[in-house]
């Protein structure tokens, strides 16, 4: 690859700084006092992990950030990263009644960050595992959000937990795949350390089926949790795709997380294929790292993009350009390096997207980032776990209450179960699977939602957002797709 870093260390650090500063104590007090302390609050229902949001906010208002963090982390062990990466606009803050009252919701994400930062910074332990383990051993495959959610919950229930991951550090996409200006990888690594302190063992650099066999795992462990997420970027199926400067957007984001910012190579003219939230992360970071042009190439219309509206706004503010109704037909090279993209306009005919004949043109780019979705690991999973049932979309089939798969004692959660959703969904599913594992091994029934809200109706009909819809159309649509 011929690409080079474009910025010096100082400029890069400035341009990639966290987009929101941490609240001061006074800012947190003012913001927390805006919360109405709703009863059975809509924000709780909108949170997949069902954090008791009014309670944690009240604790901040009452000068008890430690108790606040305890409320958060008990419900969601990755509360610090979720505070930064959750699409709060369409989850808790989208459901906040103060939004309706004042036109501006309580800043739940930033308050959550204030409380969790407080305990990390002051090294206060709010989670504890029992001193005596229950003698049962669980293997967690994948140290991403789902695996961590499952591991932390099991450790607190007294299990002997070992997490396996092929990378050299835990956290999964939280460590390697989040836009740097949203969250620095250290936050994710701090969370992993907290889970280590709960007694969870981590074994890094281990590929399942290669460095350790599933048979060995089944022999050595009482249950297995599968949280291996998704595979690499989908193939484009166009000529030139294998040129060195055609890069998986997630790999590009991983470069940013694994080397100093001023050593991250970036193109002067970057094309990002796709228009989901990863595409936005790729285009904004390209721009912030010095790209002169960073363009989203998207085959459909502005209204169809999977990225959240606020992410779209962010990218536009960063100076990204957008080509809608556009597809790449070929990556053009010069001396074996990316030189340009051959592009064509599309139109929708009878519900089908078609290239408009004769609409092709060429545009110069020196880096092409693929953000067209990640592959499912269907064949890998089927090989590892014979008899594992997958649905038509390649997702691992599971019991929605217990997260148990078609393979005995194999549980699942996160992107490989849901096809690719938010960090908070993965944590919630990991935690749910832990409850399922505990139910199986301790022979107890799984009861109720993960984090019961303080109360439902008198017949107990209401629970966390897990079992109940939220009102934000964007998310409802995403859930149903």
């Amino acid at each position, binding site marked *: 690859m011929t690409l080079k870093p474009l910025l010096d260390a100082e400029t890069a650090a400035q341009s990639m700084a966290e987009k929101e500063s941490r609240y001061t104590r006074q800012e947190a007090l003012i913001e927390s006092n805006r919360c109405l*302390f709703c*009863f*059975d*609050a*809509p924000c709780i*229902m909108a949170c997949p992990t069902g954090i008791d949001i009014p309670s944690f906010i009240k604790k901040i208002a009452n000068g008890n950030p430690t108790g606040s963090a305890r409320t958060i982390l008990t419900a969601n062990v990755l509360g610090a990263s979720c505070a930064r990466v959750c699409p709060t606009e369409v989850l808790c803050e989208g459901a906040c009644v103060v939004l*309706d*009252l004042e036109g501006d919701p309580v800043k739940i994400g930033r308050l959550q960050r204030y409380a969790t930062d407080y305990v990390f910074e002051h090294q206060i332990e709010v989670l504890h595992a029992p001193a005596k383990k229950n003698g049962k051993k669980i293997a967690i495959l994948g140290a991403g959000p789902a695996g961590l959610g499952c591991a932390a919950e099991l450790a607190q229930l007294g299990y002997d937990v070992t997490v396996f991951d092929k990378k050299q550090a835990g956290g999964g996409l939280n460590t390697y795949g989040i836009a740097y200006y949203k969250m620095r990888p250290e936050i994710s690594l701090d969370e992993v350390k907290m889970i280590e302190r709960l007694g969870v063992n981590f074994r890094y650099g281990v590929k399942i089926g290669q460095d350790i066999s599933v048979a060995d795992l089944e022999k050595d462990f009482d249950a297995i949790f599968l949280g291996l997420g998704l595979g690499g970027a989908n193939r484009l199926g166009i000529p030139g795709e294998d040129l060195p400067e055609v890069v998986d957007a997630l790999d590009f984001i991983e470069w940013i997380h694994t080397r100093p910012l001023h050593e991250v190579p970036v193109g002067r003219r970057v094309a990002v294929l796709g228009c989901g939230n990863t595409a936005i992360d790729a285009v904004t970071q390209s721009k912030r790292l010095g790209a002169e042009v960073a363009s989203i190439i998207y085959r459909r219309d502005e209204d169809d993009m999977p990225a959240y509206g606020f992410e779209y706004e962010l990218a536009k503010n960063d100076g990204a350009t957008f080509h809608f109704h556009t597809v790449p037909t070929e990556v053009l090279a010069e001396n074996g390096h990316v030189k340009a993209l051959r592009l064509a306009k599309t139109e929708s005919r009878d519900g089908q997207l078609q290239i408009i004949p004769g609409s092709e043109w060429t545009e110069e780019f020196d880096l092409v980032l693929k953000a067209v979705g990640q592959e499912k690991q269907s064949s890998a999973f089927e090989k590892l776990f014979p008899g594992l049932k997958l649905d038509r979309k390649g997702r691992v089939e599971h019991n929605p209450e217990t997260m148990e798969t078609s393979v005995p004692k194999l549980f699942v959660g996160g992107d490989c179960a849901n096809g690719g959703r938010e960090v908070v969904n993965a944590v919630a599913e990991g935690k749910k699977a832990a409850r399922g594992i505990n139910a199986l091994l301790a022979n107890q029934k799984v009861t109720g939602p993960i984090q019961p809200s303080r109360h439902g109706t*008198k017949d107990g009909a209401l629970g966390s957002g897990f079992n*109940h819809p939220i009102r934000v159309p964007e998310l409802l649509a995403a859930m149903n797709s």
Partner: protein
Amino acid sequence: MADLSINFAGIKSPNPFWIASGPPSNTAYQSHRAFEAGWGGLVWKTIGDPIINVSSRYSALNLGGQRMVGFNNIELISDRSPETNFREIKEVKDRWPNHAVIASLMVDTRERWHEFVKRSADCGADGIELNFGCPHGMCERGMGSAVGQNPDVAETIVGWVMEAAEIPVIVKLTPNITNVVYAARAAKRAGADAISLINTINSITNVNLDTLTPEPFVRGLSSHGGYCGPAVKPIALNMVQSCAADSEVGLPISGIGGIGSWRDAAEFLALGSLSLQVCTAVMHYGFRIVEDMNEGLSDYLDAKGYQSVADFSGAAVKTLSDWQYLDLHYKRVARIDYDKCIGCNLCYIACEDGAHQCIDLVDSAPYGLGPGRVPGKPVPKVREEDCVGCNLCSIVCPVDDCITMVEMDTGRDQMSWSDYQTRLTKGEMQPIPAHP
């Protein structure tokens, strides 16, 4: 335009807003600023034999991010010499002849009272206010609230003052007493021209949980202070109305206690005050707050058709009665406007845990979706037949006019507790069964 000027027991003032005796009325400099800002009068910081103050004198109660909802002080009376104070009063009166300047006094012996009363008149003060209320420091020396808490002592001292007084005398009452009306009656019996109330309430605002010492902190100790500010308004209104309604008192009242806006002022006037005194709000925001007080009160009186402050004073005194005369057959119930309900359910939990269990959470389908409600999330519904009409839900509801209390026609004649007792005695009715 309504006439805002008042004649308070002979003290004339262009409007009813006076600076209360305290730090804002300590000097001629401040008085000039106050009158320039639009205040009608001021009661000078209490003059007596000069005292020595401690450093660290104030503390406050903050609530939910709101500062100074309550305020506390351990400052004593003026630390300047009587000569300086009387000289400056004269200077202020010379420059502002049409504004009211009242000398607040606190001394001990009959001779000293006579002397200070005379000196007040000599310097041109329009009246005298007797500080019988200060609850800290001075009371340990047999003055301030030590006087105000004993109606007999107060009556004696007011008597001494009246022997020498040629200008109107206002007695300032302490709220640190079981029933303030007895102190007011004592003032009346002794011939006082008016009363003012309330002085500050004994208080400890908070404890510093690191040092375990309350504020204001004075080298390892604190002291009981005097409490004032917005939080004391309800207590002050209660005492003002009690004095206004008492047939034996019958004196003009200068209302004090938590006044910060024209609305507060109008409430004090409605409950029987004629002049109004303000201190804490000025300590918080400065003299400029009077502009809205004058404007707001004037607009209000015009809107309601009152010709003057005197015309309006006392307008609500008679709407208070002893509980025994309230109608037991009056009924109101809570009604929720589902077009306004945002779904916070604070009404539900307040009623369920804190009151009378008359609100259910029910299927929201028949009620549509209000501005913030979540599909599938139950909505609160009042069981009107069980609602006791306590008002709690409408008080906790954060949305204006979302829960209203609606009057219900019970079809029954009025009957107070007093009527009820009479009818029972006469055998006209059976006892009402206890609430289940």
